[in-house]
């Protein structure tokens, strides 16, 4: 259950629209059910009243939309940012991907978002309604006689279980109370994979990646993937491919994707959230983050604008490639 309400957000957005601070609002649009929320641009108070929602299913990270939307809009656009979204926001600014002057960012607190698949795993399919009350979700289904009451904590999205920060690192205005950077357990699963033998790890990824349908949703949702033309879409690149023809191609795409966002990935979790095949892409990203932390010192992409990621920076303390290799040998 979120501490900030839909009404408060609509009121804030209406104020900013009416006093001319912004000309449009990027927010969450109501769906057919209580959980299928669509990122939506609202231009009037009436549109907000009719179509704006804020609930436990507002996971979508709006930062990347700013790249396209700021180009299209006269005046400023209001964007609501959860703490994790603000890291992506900063990272995009570091990469000069949108004009900061055209955005009015409102930081909003977040209690963690729910994963509808986890809800259904408990309540069963055939959702009729989902209500939210305190730290509980009340799910009415077509099949259960009584509504099923679920603890919100039991259905948190993976990235929210391992939330790295309740602190907003960018905003023009903050609603609610500011939080703290938190100690998460987000590298535990990576450590578990590291402890495997190379063969076990290979089998793990083979199994996960074998489900990939190369829909590109992970790439297209990723705020770090903003190339005008991805090599995988470019027939002149030599590696363009539309579908994984074999196990090699299955992995090639993911290895390149993960390398390309290394040092720029804020661990926002969008890639894993949108994957229709539940592939734990965050584990690839976190492996890179963990290694960079170990090898070059703690670094959080997007924590501030303009910081230089370890892989594009040089200091005399940097360890030599050979040392990395030796450590890997010792770990194997």
């Amino acid at each position, binding site marked *: 259950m979120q501490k900030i309400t839909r009404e408060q957000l609509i009121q804030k957005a209406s104020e900013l629209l009416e006093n001319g601070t912004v000309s449009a609002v990027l927010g969450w649009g109501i*769906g*057919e*059910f209580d959980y*299928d*929320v*669509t*990122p*939506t*641009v609202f231009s009037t108070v009436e549109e907000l009243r009719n179509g704006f929602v804020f609930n436990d299913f507002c996971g*979508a990270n709006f930062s990347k*939309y700013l790249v396209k939307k700021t180009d299209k809009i006269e005046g400023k656009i209001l964007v609501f940012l959860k703490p994790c979204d603000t890291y992506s926001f900063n990272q995009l600014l570091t990469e000069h991907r949108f004009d900061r002057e055209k955005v009015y960012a409102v930081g909003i607190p977040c209690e963690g978002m729910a994963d509808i*698949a986890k809800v259904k*795993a408990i309540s*069963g*399919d*055939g*959702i*009729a309604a989902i209500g939210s009350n305190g730290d509980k979700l009340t799910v009415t289904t*077509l*099949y259960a006689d009584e509504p099923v009451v679920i603890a919100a904590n039991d259905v948190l999205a993976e990235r929210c279980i391992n939330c790295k920060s309740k602190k907003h690192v960018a905003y023009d205005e903050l609603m609610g109370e500011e939080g703290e950077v938190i100690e998460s357990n987000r590298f535990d699963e990576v450590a578990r994979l590291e402890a495997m033998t190379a063969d076990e790890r290979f089998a793990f990824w083979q*199994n*996960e990646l074998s*489900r990939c*349908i*190369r*829909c*590109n*949703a992970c*790439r*297209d*949702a990723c705020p770090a993937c903003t190339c005008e*033309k991805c090599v995988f*879409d470019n*027939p002149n690149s030599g590696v363009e*491919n*539309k*579908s*994984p*023809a074999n196990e090699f191609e299955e992995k090639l795409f993911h290895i390149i994707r993960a390398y390309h966002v290394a040092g720029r990935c804020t661990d926002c979790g969008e890639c894993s*959230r*949108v994957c*229709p*095949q*539940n*592939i734990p892409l965050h584990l690839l990203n976190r492996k890179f983050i963990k290694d960079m932390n170990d090898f070059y010192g703690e670094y959080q992409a997007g924590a501030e604008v303009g910081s230089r990621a370890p892989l594009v920076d040089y200091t005399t303390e940097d360890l030599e490639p050979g040392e990395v290799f030796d450590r890997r040998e010792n770990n194997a």
Partner: protein
Amino acid sequence: MRKCSLEKINLLFKEIAKNAELYLPQDQTDGSAAYKKWEEGSVWSNALNTVRSPKDFFFPQTEDLMAFKTEGKNIEVIDTRKALDDFVIFGVRACDVKSFDILDRVFLSEPVDSFYALRRSHGVIISLACSKPSETCFCKTFGINPAEPTGDISAWKTETDIFFESNTQKGKELLEKLSALTEECDDTAVVDQKAKIDAIMQKLPLKDLKTDAFGGGKTGELFNAPEWDELSEACLGCGTCTFVCPTCQCYDIKDFNTGNGVIRFRCWDSCMYSDFTKMAHGNNRLTQKERFRQRFMHKLVYYPENNDGLFSCVGCGRCLVKCPISMNIVKVMKKIGGKKGE
């Protein structure tokens, strides 16, 4: 009608698998279901449906069409087609069975796609009625009845038994081979289940979705509808909706350079992609709005125009569940269709 106790279902699978490869929905490690080949020890999934649709059996994501081998100035053309054995797909839902009709009209009309035709002729389909439709199901909108799935054999599963009825010669022959494991029975239990499914269908949230605003001849009216801007606003241009869809049928033909030759293959394409139907002059759909519109106009206007009014959506709900931004054909139909969509 014949029935088999669910206690004996694995024996039944084993019997089918003696003569043909058997595929059925099985749970994967991530909790979702996929069609997998049956082997001793395989467990039939309870999931309502699979993430990937069974169109894969007839129209796989990638398929080699031919190959060329070069040696000096010689080019050898290699036929990559392979002989195919019979296979059985078990547990196909009514919506997905209907999707085969929609694909047939594309691939089996002249000029017949021999790759598709070969697979289609070797497949036997055992369908399964849906006792627990999801809120995302809207097959009824397209005249599909989940209580009466078609296919070569129709099946209904109750708590204790599974019931079969054959609809085609292929189905009859397969059912005859299973006679030792099944027994003749009356249809009381099945009639009862059909009534229960009908009752549930009346409660589904999308039960009143209508197609009245769509169909052949509507291009002029709908193509420039202002709603497309808003609907496509947040679309990421990923291929999720098209790749999970049982009726999406577009493909690209590409050459893979092997160093001393070329493998020419086809792979699924998506109208949501920026290079879809790219030609020498460039792309004919430059914005995501145009690409987005193509997907829905194809399903709701162009396809019916060329296919006696048949829509190319079966209401399976996969795109509702899987779109990263929760934009989908239902929202399009309601918005564009206005009152007629409800």
